């Protein structure tokens, strides 16, 4: 299988992770080795150029699709068994589980595609639970007529993304729907992870005095998607920030683990929505400084033109952390040591005033309440 972007690195800290034990006879035992970048078998050819209804019908054509596209890409013993499910061995401790469905249009966008996003999204949700991903599942809903080559590219991208994180895709499902009933391909991924010992993050754990950190620039993903969406296309070099946060978060937890109160990835609804949720669950007030929130120049420009507030625009590779005040500087350093955290910043703090509300101090010194998003953000007329 041809894949130029194949990245075979395994995060170093994965090896230090003691909560997961892979039992010798378990299906998972050999996975890391195969994911670590062995040669990929040439995929058997598929006669058809485009997905047909029969590719989801359970017969020979479906088997050929699996043999040709999915099995070689995600090659691992659990999947190779083609059983109804996969077995995972864990020693003890807490498990985290998360699921997400991906319906993005267009399928390929600057900085990623639906395949890499489907891996990163679920890996990041697990990371926000303080968990290292142990295994992913992948469910596909393919639209009749989808070019097989497009599917190969997406699956190849998922393979690269999963290999980069060091997480196997252990079981999956494929369905085909009539032409016109899907948007090319929809993907669902579910992830299971093992929560690091001693970590208790929760959205209701923010306390007055705690500091609010962002791991980098906001609104990159939403602006990148808008820039290529039909009807709004505009020239920009902005790329999606789609990236796996497992490693970045592991570094943070290594540094200040016990003092991390809240971990969230501000995807749909952006940073504003996550802050509002935390303020409500924690019954605490949050104060942020507009001038401290990292936003790329070109992203700010695009948001100004489109009439969008970057605080409400989606991210796919950023993490918002609330941490005890005495650990804020160490948390910031831990972030900045990692390539994905180079632009990290302390953007505000938790206060005893205005419980349940988020207040932003503007650049010119005024204050306003940050509310939850209503409906979908749409570009304004003027």
């Amino acid at each position, binding site marked *: 299988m041809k894949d130029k972007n194949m990245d075979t690195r395994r995060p170093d800290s994965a090896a230090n992770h003691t909560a997961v034990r892979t039992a010798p006879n378990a299906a998972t035992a050999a996975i890391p080795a195969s994911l670590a970048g062995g040669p990929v078998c040439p995929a058997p050819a598929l006669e058809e150029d485009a997905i047909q209804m029969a590719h989801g019908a359970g017969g020979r054509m479906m088997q050929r699709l699996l043999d040709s596209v999915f099995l070689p890409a995600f090659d691992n013993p659990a999947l190779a068994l083609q059983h109804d499910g996969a077995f995972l061995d864990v020693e003890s401790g807490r498990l985290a589980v998360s699921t997400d469905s991906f319906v993005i249009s267009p399928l390929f966008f600057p900085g990623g595609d639906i395949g890499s996003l489907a891996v990163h999204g679920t890996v990041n949700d697990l990371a926000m639970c303080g968990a290292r991903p142990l295994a992913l599942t992948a469910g596909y809903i393919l639209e009749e007529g989808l070019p097989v080559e497009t599917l190969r590219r997406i699956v190849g991208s998922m393979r690269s993304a999963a290999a980069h994180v060091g997480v196997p895709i252990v079981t999956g499902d494929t369905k085909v729907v009539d032409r016109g009933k899907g948007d090319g391909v929809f993907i669902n991924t579910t992830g299971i992870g093992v929560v690091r010992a001693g970590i208790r993050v929760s959205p209701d754990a923010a306390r007055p005095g705690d500091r609010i950190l962002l791991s980098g620039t906001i609104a990159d993903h939403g602006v990148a998607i808008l820039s290529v969406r039909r009807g709004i296309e505009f020239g920009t070099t902005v790329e999606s920030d789609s990236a796996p946060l497992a490693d970045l978060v592991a570094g943070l937890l290594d540094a200040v683990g016990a003092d991390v109160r809240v971990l969230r990835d501000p995807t749909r609804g952006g940073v504003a929505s996550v802050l509002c949720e935390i303020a409500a669950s924690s019954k605490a007030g949050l104060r942020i400084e507009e001038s401290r929130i990292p936003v790329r120049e070109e992203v*700010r*420009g695009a948001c100004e033109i489109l009439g969008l507030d970057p605080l409400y625009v989606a991210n796919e590779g950023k993490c918002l952390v609330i941490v005890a005040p005495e650990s804020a500087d160490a948390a910031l350093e831990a972030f900045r040591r990692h390539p994905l955290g180079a632009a990290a910043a302390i953007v505000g703090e938790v206060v005893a005033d205005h419980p349940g509300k988020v207040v932003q101090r503007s650049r010119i*010194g005024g204050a306003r309440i940050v*509310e939850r998003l209503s409906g979908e953000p*749409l570009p304004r007329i*003027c």
Partner: protein
Amino acid sequence: MKFVDEYRSEEHARAFLEAIQRTITRPWTLMEICGGQTHTLLKFGIDELLPREITLVHGPGCPVCVTPIELIDQAVEIARRPEVLFTSFGDMLRVPGTRSSLLGAKAAGADVRMVYSPLDAVSLARQHKDREVVFFAVGFETTAPANAMAIYEAARLGLRNFSVLSAHVLVPPAMEAILGSPDNIVQGFLAAGHVCTVMGYREYEPIAEKYRIPIVVTGFEPLDLLHGIWMTIAALEEGRWGVENQYTRSVVRDGNLRAAAILEEVFEVCDRQWRGVGSIPLSGYRLARAYERFDAAARFAVATETAPEPSDCIAGLILQGRKKPNECREFGAGCTPEHPIGAPMVSTEGACSAYYLYGRR
């Protein structure tokens, strides 16, 4: 960001606030015309930084808010026709009509697409010769030239499958309607900088003279607004009236002559219904005779049944600056952006939505 950060400096904002404080000796009520200005005032917390003597009331300058419900109903009915590919700016899509919004029609199967430029609608008409492409041409003088250009372009290309539903509105007649009302409380205006970029400000001069009121053409950045407020207060305190221009980096007295020429070519002035306000003479544009064939309202004779505006909504009073959004009984309770009763809560540019979004409860 260049040309933005310069106008958001805390140091300069403080200097303007001090200048306003030094100048003011008694209470004044100012109206900013444009919804974009309302948003800047609230988003940057300027309203709470100003001296207490200043009352800001919010004008009718939100095109989505003042588009009559009949036109939304008409748009929805046209969009539902199978041959129609209906295009609109984003924030018009979720405004509720009597039975449905355009987004609701889309969910029910209509081909409704958001465009960012009216010329994109023309491109769609060129690509889909077998479809009727309709553009919902909404906006003040700011947006009208681009809409006119799209119609002009469609005529030049000889497109037969393109038409517009025109809902254009004009600022000066609305200002006169406010000033002419016996209940008027506005003592000074911040005129809409972008409207004046297109139209210039000659047409405001007789209004300022007739009603002996200062009108300051003002931009949209925080420092623009503080500067404009200071200029207006200074004029009021000195007993001066007339038109002044704060937004000199964008506005000249004669406006953009080429934009005016295309407006003159494609449109003619007509009476227009304003949602929540009523009919204002000579306050809108319709297609000029030579371009009548692009009028979607004539091309698609759709029947609509429009319910009267809800009686517990005070949108009309808010759009005329006689009430503030948080003085409405329904604000934040029965009327929220998720379940709006009146248009100023629907549009992101509406005053009620701004009060809600920025927490002015």
